[in-house]
């Protein structure tokens, strides 16, 4: 797989990152070299090998269904650039 100008623009848009032409070029090179490096793994025969999901062989920790009263709104809204009556206020999202 090769990353070209179109792909990089698409990824940038999906990630909401603005890239100028110079940056796009840099990222095309960086990402392609990463992909080339990862592609070496294709040389390994993985037929009949279960995908590894976890190197620690631990199991998913679970919690009991207990709710903690957080009364969080002040803390949660502390970093909000704009808020009103306990709500985050964001530029209008029209759908």
């Amino acid at each position, binding site marked *: 797989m090769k990353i070209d100008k179109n792909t990089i623009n*698409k990824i940038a*848009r*999906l990630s*909401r990152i603005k890239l100028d032409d110079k940056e796009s070029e840099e990222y095309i090179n960086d990402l392609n070299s990463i992909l080339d490096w990862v592609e070496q793994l294709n040389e390994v025969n993985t037929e009949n090998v279960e995908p590894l*999901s*976890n190197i620690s062989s*631990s*199991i*998913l*920790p*679970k*919690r*009991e*269904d*207990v*709710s*903690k*009263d*957080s*009364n*969080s*709104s002040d803390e*949660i*809204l502390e970093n909000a650039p*704009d808020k*009103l*009556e*306990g*709500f*985050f*206020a*964001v*530029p*209008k*999202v*029209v*759908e």
Partner: protein
Amino acid sequence: MNNLIKGEKYEWEMVIGLEIHAQVKSNSKLFSSSSTKFGSSPNSQVSLVDAAMPGMLPVINKYCVEQAVKTGIGLNAKINNYSVFDRKNYFYADLPQGYQISQYKYPIVGEGKVTIDFKDGTSKDISIVRLHLEQDAGKSLHDQNPSKTYVDLNRSGVALMEIVSEPDIRTPDEAGMYLSKIRSILMYLNTCDGNMQEGSLRADVNISVRKPGDQYGTRCEIKNLNSIKFIKQAINYEAKRQIEILESGGSIEQNTMLFNTSTGKTRPMRNKEEAHDYRYFPDPDLLPLEISQEEIEKIKLSIPELPDELKNKFIDTYKLSNYDASVLTAEKQTSDYFNKSINSDPELKNHAKIVVNWITSELFSLLKKNNLNLNNSPVSPENLGQLIKLISNNEISGKIAKDVLEVMFSTGKTARQIVDEKGLQQVTDQGEIEKVIDEVISDNPNMVKEYLDGKDKLLGFFVGQAMKKTKGKANPKILNDILKNKLNKEN
């Protein structure tokens, strides 16, 4: 059964599949300890995990996992011992993480099926593709300010079960029945509260149309419908829209639609051209979810009697029709009420059909008129049983029983009390009824003549007059018999 709809030129068949989102009824969220309570002040139930603060790690709620398994069992579905949580990536103001934790390739529950019952006694199976666990998003308010959207994250991270059906549904009614059935199963299992108004249960509808026998057409998805009425309206509108395009030579563009509840129309969502590139990948913060067969068996033991089992039991025990039994079992409160009522007196077992009718027509309409439901009905199941026993024993007529029920409803008195106080016992004494009929006949000589000349309809007039004189208390069958007899003797 013909499920086709007519266009200008051809007949068309709808092909419909539903994705139902059901909130798990739990105390805390899927990956955090915040409360799930509905209607609290905005952003008061948001932990640092829900707000996606850097460095926070999700820890799964064991109870939510069990509820998903329980629901899977209730949907006759395969439970997967191994499932994986993935990140579904997209940007939206009510999704602070920038991704939703969901399940993609390996859902917790696989294929299942549910049955829907039609009025004519037939039924149909709808296949289920999968059920997976995922996080709910926050809530956005768009209509409070012309330039701002307000965001409340209280719902963010609440556990959802997404139940996906095969495109087995062919009419808007079937879609409604399927959703009702899923809702009913969830409520019997107590895994979701089924409250559509509060959004605990909502659905996305996939719909396409085709000429009968053709391949599936291109489908559109209508998002976020929260009532059965809207689902039917949206399907009808969208099918018509697609048929008009196809018949005028156009083609359907696969699209995500929104339904406007005030105009009854669907329209495509804007800015969605990139939306379907969700770039799913396994969430590196979460290990795969493994459930042993032993745990599944343990959960199986906690499954209560479900609507279909109960329905079959009612059919067997009380000889009810498939449809009556399905109406009775659709909601747990209805079947509970029926059970209590019919078991309040051993004789009622032989009058099950009457009990059903009185619950589903008379009592339901009184409750509806007063904005109540069976759980807070002023008439207890035992008192309704007593009323029905008075009818079946011929102590009061059905017509008077309706009045009695209304008094029971407004005063809370028992049927027996009301009948005794008001002297409403049916008159079954032959002599007494004969006397009344003699009076009616002698009061109306002209009518009698007309009747005898062949105007049969007048029989109703005589019955009415006699009933009036007995204040509605005469046993209608005895009255009718004696009346016909006497009139014919006049001849």
